[in-house]
């Protein structure tokens, strides 16, 4: 026997749930949210998966990023770069890391095979932290976490004070020598908001990098995060990093 109270409770739950289902149905009918006519910031939450086991250190991402975003060609300005780790046998705490020109020209062979060492590439970029230290220190509000989860820079408002460059634990920011304001990876915001992938993901030949929308239930990123052993860089800093690494060795800093 259903009491009136139970009946009212159940029917209001039903009403709320069917409203949510109707809202979700709109997305389903429109296909992926990217294909929807207007880009709705609240419908997205961008993240990137980086599969170290697939990275071949070709440098395509570095070159594509510099081309796409007009990053200065000097060998010390990068929105994304690739590091080569050489972990000597029996010394996992002290890897040798190099990144000649950020990996722009690839990695000339430096280490000999069969010396018992472990060698691998680690692509790096802005981690698009949900709780970004760089955003917290900006004195004017020129850098921010967008409603769709991308850390962006307001270049017309940035003073070039460099606080954020120091605050970023991942070294992802630099002062653009042309504009004298800060620059960093934007997850190719001009591309992902138009239904395209980022320049680095577009040109990665092994799909070692893939941008994903955590708010899109159909996005393969969910499957990847579920079926792999994932870690973020410097998890102890609680930055809410959204660059999810598969196969991240403990020696990577």
């Amino acid at each position, binding site marked *: 026997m259903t009491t009136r109270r139970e009946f009212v409770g159940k029917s209001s739950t039903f009403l709320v749930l069917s409203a949510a289902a109707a809202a979700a149905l709109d997305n389903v009918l429109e296909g992926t949210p990217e294909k929807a006519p207007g880009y709705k*910031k609240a419908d997205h939450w961008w993240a990137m998966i980086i599969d170290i086991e697939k990275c071949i250190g070709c440098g395509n991402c570095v070159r594509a990023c510099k081309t796409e975003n007009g990053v200065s060609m000097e060998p010390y300005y990068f929105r994304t770069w690739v590091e080569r780790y050489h972990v000597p046998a029996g010394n996992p705490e002290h890897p040798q890391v190099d990144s000649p020109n950020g990996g722009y020209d*690839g990695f000339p*062979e430096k280490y000999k095979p069969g010396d018992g060492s472990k060698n691998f590439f680690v692509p790096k970029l802005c981690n698009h932290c949900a709780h970004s230290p760089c955003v917290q220190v900006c004195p004017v509000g020129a850098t*921010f976490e*967008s409603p769709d989860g991308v850390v*962006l820079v307001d270049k*017309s408002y940035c003073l070039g004070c460099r606080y954020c460059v120091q605050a970023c634990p991942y070294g992802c920011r630099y002062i653009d020598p042309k504009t004298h304001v800060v620059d960093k990876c934007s997850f190719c*915001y001009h591309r992902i908001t138009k239904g395209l992938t980022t320049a680095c993901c*577009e040109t*990665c030949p092994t799909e070692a990098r893939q941008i994903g929308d955590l708010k899109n239930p159909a996005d393969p990123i969910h499957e990847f995060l579920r079926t792999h052993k994932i870690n973020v860089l410097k998890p102890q800093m609680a930055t809410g990093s959204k660059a999810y690494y598969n196969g991240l060795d403990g020696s990577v800093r």
Partner: protein
Amino acid sequence: MRHLMKNKVHLFRMAGLFVVGFLVFAGARAVFVPEGFGVYGHYRAGALEDNRAFPLVHAGRAACAGCHGDEPEALKASRHAKVGCEACHGALAVHADDPAKLTPKKPDAKTLCLVCHMANVAKPSGFKQISPEDHPEGVCTECHDPHSPADAPKPAPAPVQKEAAK
């Protein structure tokens, strides 16, 4: 009563100063706080659109497939299925917008293939790698088709046939 008012003049003066101060503050705020600041958070809402307005440099593989049907189709069925067109052919949004504006250059196979396939200890062991010293001379594309690379290249040496034809 009048006596009391006399002692309150300084209060009115103070209130007047507060009003003037507030007006100065409101005026300065209107001038210095940019439009749209605080709509989504402690930043200018227009900055989102500024970041979106950046021009495309890479067209994306879907744009390539719009005109070039055959190669992308062949690619899809091959071991290079995951490789985007612009990974080898370079950034070509200008070409995709107006093919007359920019004719893409054919990549130099000998350097391009090695960008990925040059042997390196840091590469994943499952990835196909070659050392130029261990591999016969010649341009890669004489035996391997980059749009549908076979597991084992054609055994017949293609360059010899070419020379014979000459």
